[in-house]
């Protein structure tokens, strides 16, 4: 398969008052052409750090002891972590665009929507406002907004759902090949969530970008993703197709998450929580980081940390006993 982004052995740590937090530990991951990859995990799992790293938007306290992010385009490969300022500026937006969780804080509050589109286009070398206007109108119509009404509005004059749609349109302005979304539906109402989900699907069909989204919400992954990666304590602990992860999960943490989420339709069943709580990233346990909470734990789990082990084709699990793990 054709990989657009390759993350290799990437580790990221944050220096803080209490010590160093290991936010990401030797993560390797590919994002392929035309796919939607969902990264799921709870707070502290490293999913946001991973997404920010792809855009090189990590906060100053972050440092990268090892690893690479490779971006492949036209038979060439760019090393994202060593891009110069000008090349990085173009990479962000033209190659890889990001849609943040809070649309209100990522739009400029004192600029009308039209000016935000125009500014973005100009910053990337587009000098003809008429061309920008045509493209902007087209995009706004695609996200089911009335261009005339929205273009002259300030961000605060739009509802949360409308702002989120403006953000999607703005992200697509420069025709990126990859769109990274941070919790794209969190904090939105159900009917608005549905609108955004359906839009993401149709936009991807229409414009043909690859998508990587992060969410704590398993149902978003079930809806949108082709592949899903489960993250825990800074690592990918399981990765596979959406059906594999939901119907044949082979990591105890993925199983635990699935058993903790109620559904509206389907059988009414008893839900189980995962005992214990997520680890302190400054004092990670030895061995498998999930072992203190794991029902399958054996002595070896407290000593060695498993790599992602081969389950089937693209399905991998970081559990020594994946063969025994069942939903």
């Amino acid at each position, binding site marked *: 398969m054709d990989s657009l982004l390759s993350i290799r052995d990437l580790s990221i740590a944050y220096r803080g008052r209490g010590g160093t937090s290991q936010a990401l530990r030797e993560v390797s991951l590919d994002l392929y052409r035309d796919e939607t990859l969902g990264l799921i995990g*709870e*707070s502290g799992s490293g999913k946001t750090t991973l997404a920010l790293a792809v855009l090189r938007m990590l906060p100053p306290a972050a440092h990268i002891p090892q690893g690479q992010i490779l971006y492949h385009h036209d038979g060439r490969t760019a090393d994202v972590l060593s891009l110069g300022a000008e090349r990085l500026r173009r990479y962000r937006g033209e190659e890889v665009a990001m849609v943040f969780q809070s649309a209100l804080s990522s739009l400029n509050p004192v600029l009308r929507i039209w000016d935000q589109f125009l500014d973005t286009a100009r910053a990337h070398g587009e000098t003809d406002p008429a061309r920008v206007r045509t493209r902007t109108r087209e995009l706004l119509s695609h996200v*089911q907004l009335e261009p005339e009404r929205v273009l002259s509005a300030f961000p605060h004059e739009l*509802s949360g*759902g*409308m702002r989120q749609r403006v953000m999607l349109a703005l992200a697509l302005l420069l025709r990126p090949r990859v769109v990274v979304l941070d919790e794209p*539906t969190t904090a939105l*109402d*159900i*009917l*608005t*969530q*549905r*609108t955004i*989900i359906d839009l993401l699907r149709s936009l991807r069909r229409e414009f043909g970008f690859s998508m990587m989204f992060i969410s*704590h*919400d*398993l*149902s*978003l*992954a*079930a*809806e949108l993703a082709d592949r899903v990666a489960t993250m825990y304590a800074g690592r990918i602990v399981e990765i596979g197709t*959406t*059906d594999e992860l*939901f*119907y044949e999960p082979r990591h105890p943490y993925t199983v*635990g*998450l*699935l058993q*903790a*989420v*109620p*559904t*509206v*339709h*389907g059988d*009414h069943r008893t*839900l*189980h*929580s*995962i*005992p214990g*709580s*997520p680890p302190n990233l400054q004092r990670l346990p030895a061995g498998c980081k999930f072992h203190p909470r794991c029902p399958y734990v054996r002595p070896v789990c407290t000593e060695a940390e498993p790599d992602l082990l081969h389950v089937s084709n693209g399905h991998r699990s970081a559990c020594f006993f994946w063969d025994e793990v069942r939903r």
Partner: protein
Amino acid sequence: MIILERVSRIFRSRGEAIRAVDDVSLEIGEGQVMSLVGESGSGKTTTGKMIAGLVTPSSGRVLFEGRDIRTLDGAARARYRRAVQIIHQDPYACLNPVRTVGDTLAAPLQLYGLADGRSRNAGIGELLERVELTPASAFVDKYPHQLSGGQRQRVAVARALSVQPKFLVADEAVSMIDVSLRISLLNLLLKLRQETGVAFLFITHDLALARHFGWDGRIAVMYLGRVVDVGPTRTVIEDPHHPYTRALLAAVPEADPHITRTKPRLRLRSQDPPSLLHLPSGCAFHPRCPWAESGLCDVIRPELTHVRAQEVACHVAVREGALPDLAATT
């Protein structure tokens, strides 16, 4: 035990009136659970606060054991205050940051004279054990910032339980907690229901949580300040009558790829909810409703009407056979 009689609440903001809750009537008996679901701005939190006495209705009455809570005085008022407790959404904001867990729990025990001296410490220990913060001695001297979100919310639950309430208003009590810990808190609340028979108003935007928690209870669906659909949890979820309830159920993403990708969609006429400042005429849902009939739904506001086990505020849904059978389309 709790009855809302045509309760409304209007907030004023910059000279404009916002009808947060509009003519809501509900009844929750002893030991029962009522889930209140709706999107942001639907008025569910304000409704919960009126039951807990934190917000005064602009019109209508809240009855506790048959008496208007505004007319209660002396002993009767104290009894109501103790009987009805609220658990707020945000475990970070609702605990006093300079009080230890022990102090937080001691205050209500002392206020109501439920325990003093040595028995107070025993009481605190017992409360912490009931919310599964064990060993209790590891938590008594902790400050809120030393606890995780889930642990804080357990302290808030313990505080509510300290006065042996009969009625708990849980306002998105588990929403802000990580997935793996959320269910343990929810299961804890379920266990408390079984053990103590406390009644619940369970406020949530999450239909799956409402279904799970209130499986044997009732659901009321709110839209723009009004209750549009009420009935037993099972029938509202499996055979929803109101078009808005149908829209919610069709829209909600599910953590099962097959279910969520194949369930029938309901196409709304408009994606955007109207502003509370400019509510549509007639039925407030009519501009978005696929079954709205002009000359009727945009003119006359529908009242809650019995349809089998449910009550529904919709001109069209009350007519037998007027809406497509959901079971047939699934």
